[in-house]
């Protein structure tokens, strides 16, 4: 098994965190994992992305040029990455944003009402967690419980009070994705 994932979106959407969370969970499952955040100046205001590779074998390159899975959290990232997704790959699209119509037919496109799911979970701003849940729901690359259990280790303790609603958002997304 080898999945190459790109998360992408606006600077404030928690893009880095999505990558970190899934990478960490996979690592705990004993998989080979690499995670590359887009760092520094790139992140300001503009488009941020992070790359995760999860594999059963040692990983040669942590760079993802043609992802097997891509999560596009806004319009610009959709336009940037849609064409790069591998045939039969999965493209997850944030449907709470205008101008996000995926066009390719040779890949699986999963449109998610990210904000709605997050709002149901308790905070309209944690759409990233819902999307992440959906990803794991659709392609079971890791156990959703690993994902949830891992959160507390990577979220600084000051924010541990927010873990429950994050978990809720993940589960909402998971459900949505598993359908």
């Amino acid at each position, binding site marked *: 098994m080898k999945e190459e994932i790109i998360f992408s979106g606006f600077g404030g959407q928690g893009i880095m965190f999505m990558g970190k969370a899934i990478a960490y969970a996979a690592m705990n499952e004993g998989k080979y994992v690499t995670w590359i955040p887009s760092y*520094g100046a790139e992140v*300001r205001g503009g488009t941020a992305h992070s790359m995760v590779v999860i594999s059963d074998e040692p990983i040669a390159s942590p760079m993802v040029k043609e992802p097997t899975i891509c999560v596009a959290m806004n319009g610009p990232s959709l336009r940037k990455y849609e064409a790069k997704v591998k045939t039969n790959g999965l493209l997850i699209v944030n449907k709470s944003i205008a101008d996000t119509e995926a066009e390719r037919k040779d890949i699986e496109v999963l449109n998610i009402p990210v904000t709605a799911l997050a709002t149901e979970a308790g905070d309209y701003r944690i759409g990233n967690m819902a999307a992440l849940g959906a990803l794991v729901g659709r392609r079971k690359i890791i156990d959703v419980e690993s994902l949830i259990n891992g959160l507390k280790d990577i979220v600084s303790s000051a924010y541990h009070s927010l873990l429950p609603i994050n978990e809720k958002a993940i589960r909402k997304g998971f459900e949505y994705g598993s359908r």
Partner: protein
Amino acid sequence: MDNIFEKPESMKDAITHYCPGCGHGIVHRIICETVDSLGIREKLIGIAPVGCAVIAYDYWNFDVTEAAHGRVPAVATGIKRSLPDRIVFGYQGDGDLGAIGTAEIIHAANRGENITIIFVNNTVYGMTGGQMAPTTVLKQKTATTSAGREQKMHGFPLKVCELLSVLPGVVYAERVSIHSPQAVIKAGKAIKKAFENQVKGMGFSIVEVLSPCPTYMGLSPQDAVKWVGGELAKEYPIKIFKDIT
């Protein structure tokens, strides 16, 4: 329908890469308003620092060069001495001016170079991820002071205007803030004076601008401006430190 407020000519119509609520955008704009009002856009050469404002050239509609981290005053000196009738200004962050560029700013000031420096003090290294800056206040948490800045380990906050005012080459040093519309208007006036001084050939002028970096102050944009106007301004008095023009 009359236009009460519009984009200055010296400003390009671009979406900046700055975070929501970042002060750089405001400072950029008030510089451009000054440039327009003094009519100096066509003889202006700006110097962008290494810092979050590194690509200011994408937003400013006049000649702009980059300078290596901290070397803005040296580059400005080279330009101004070569073209004494052009207007030359440097834009610097607190890491750029107050840390790595300490020697350059002190000596440009001490030589009394006829240039204008706009110094954006946001108390952190924005571009590199929010590390401690020389200007970080005691107890402030940053990426390299996770328990808050502590004097024994990290030294005192550096007061740039206080320090530079001692130098005879400095004709004008003022600290302003941009935490509120009123403060922004005052900041605009200071910046205008700093440019006017150069136009009149008076010497070295610097305006220090207390500016929010919500991202690495760890505050919402709204809380960030409140903190800047409150606690920060207490530590860094907002006033004219020197004016011998």
